């Protein structure tokens, strides 16, 4: 919470650590104004945490820019816009069956928390380079959800990968 504004972290865009602490680049959404912005936040800054309700749901369907989720207990449906989901919108497909957490502020759904690690299949990338298993060099790859992430050079079209939904980083190849 910043003054009267409630900010929700939509994405961790990267971080760097020094001897004094960590600076994290974040994309945040202001729930009152609806605006998003990128910020660099150092680890020493303290904020008042806003109490949010979390409800476990599954994605029901996607209607254009609207994502509809089904509460697994009440069977009520809740809608979130693509903008509400931020980059997370690019990580999920209508076929997904995993549970997600929908966050509520003052009774309204405002955001989504995905499982930290999810599996996706690469639908397009430049040809793989065999032998380069270091993972230090990367290339862009389009996932079956339509989103593009950076993957190691050894990945190929059809490779199933596990990646971190907090920052979009590659974790491992799924065998």
């Amino acid at each position, binding site marked *: 919470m910043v003054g009267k504004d409630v900010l929700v972290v939509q994405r961790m865009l990267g971080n760097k650590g020094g001897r004094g602490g960590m600076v994290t680049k974040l994309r945040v959404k202001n729930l009152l104004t609806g605006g998003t912005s990128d910020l*660099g936040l150092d680890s020493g800054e303290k904020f008042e945490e806003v109490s949010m309700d979390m409800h476990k749901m599954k994605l029901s369907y996607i209607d254009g820019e609207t994502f509809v989720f089904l509460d697994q207990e009440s069977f009520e449906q809740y809608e979130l816009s693509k903008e509400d989901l931020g980059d997370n919108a690019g990580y999920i497909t209508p076929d997904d069956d995993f549970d997600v957490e929908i966050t509520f502020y003052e009774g309204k759904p405002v955001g989504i928390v995905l499982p930290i690690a999810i599996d996706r299949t690469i639908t397009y990338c430049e040809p793989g380079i065999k032998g380069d298993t270091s993972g230090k060099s990367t290339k862009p790859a389009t996932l079956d959800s339509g989103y593009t992430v950076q993957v190691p050079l050894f990945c190929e079209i059809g490779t199933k990968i596990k990646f971190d939904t907090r920052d979009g980083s590659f974790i491992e190849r799924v065998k």
Partner: protein
Amino acid sequence: MTIDVLCKVVDNYGDIGVVHRLARALAESERGLKLRLIVDDLVAYSLLEPAVDTARTIQDMHGWKILSWACPDDGSRAAFRQEYATDPPRIVIECFACGRPDWFEAMLFDPADSAVKTMVNLEYLSAEPYAVEFHRMPSLTRSPLVRKHLFMPGFETGTGGLILDRAFMDSRSRYSDAASRKAERRRLVGRLDLATPAGAVEFAGRFWVLVFGYERDYGRIVGDVAEFGRGTPVQVLVASGKSGPCFMEAWDRAGKPFPATRLPFLPQTDWDEVLVASDFTIVRGEDSMSRAALSGRPFLWQAYPQEGKQQLVKVRALLDGMRRCFEPASFGPVETAFTAFNDRLEDGPEVRGDEGILPLLVPDTVMAAGFSSFSDVLLGNGNLAGNLMTFLREIV
């Protein structure tokens, strides 16, 4: 304009050294600027700047106010209150995300104060690409009235650059001219009492190698300096600190093959002068490395060891920036030496490396031009103090 500069000493003297240098450069860049330095370790500060009185929790120095981080519960608390009653904090430079003392935090976030405060977090120097990405980026505090931004020092265009304080630049200029260099060195040798008056000329005329690193076995470096010393009279200056006993032990073991002199702990301006007076420097820490790079002379940097050899990432980033200034053939030995010197998991008297510095010592005009060119690039990025003042004017 009044600026509060906050500094917490994490370890050694790097943090307070940068803050003191920044204060000098800010005062030089802006006439009439009032600076208040809030520092948690006045003892460490006094070693770099002897004018600091460690017994006084609030004091004037060079026209600035120096305040102790821990506002004491005695008579000086009234002096703190008086200082801020008429001139509350409005512009704050928080160095290295050090946080704020409670008494300062209370003023900054005072609900009765509706004025906007501007805060800049001056981050650690790094050549890594994130320096450009994070430079001038908006940050957050818990109050919309306390507006914070990041400011990144750096080696690249698009960062805040390096601090170019007048004392350092004057020293650099005086020692850059070959004709005046010997005379300046003789004066320096006399002033720091490094040799007898009779020996000062010979001392000043040798090839100076300055050693300031972390603990390790310096046998390989001593061997290379000894080899180089067969053709050129060498004088090694061993800085106070962790590398001193290690270097002297290796030097002793090798049969004292060249003259080596232990330096006392030097105030910042004296240290800078020794550094630019030297022909080759081995330096640790970001601030001394930046001075060595700005000197335009060959140097070797030892980065602070981090888990999983993360220091190599920092070293490679610096090398990537330097590479553009060198002929490819002459850069190879530089890259090899930097990488070997930093390829270690931890420090200690037994830690050995394969750092061959002989190619960096032997006069090579092409390689020397590379170091000089890198220095020119850094100077071209401007003075961090001036860049910071420009940024503050934009955001206040």
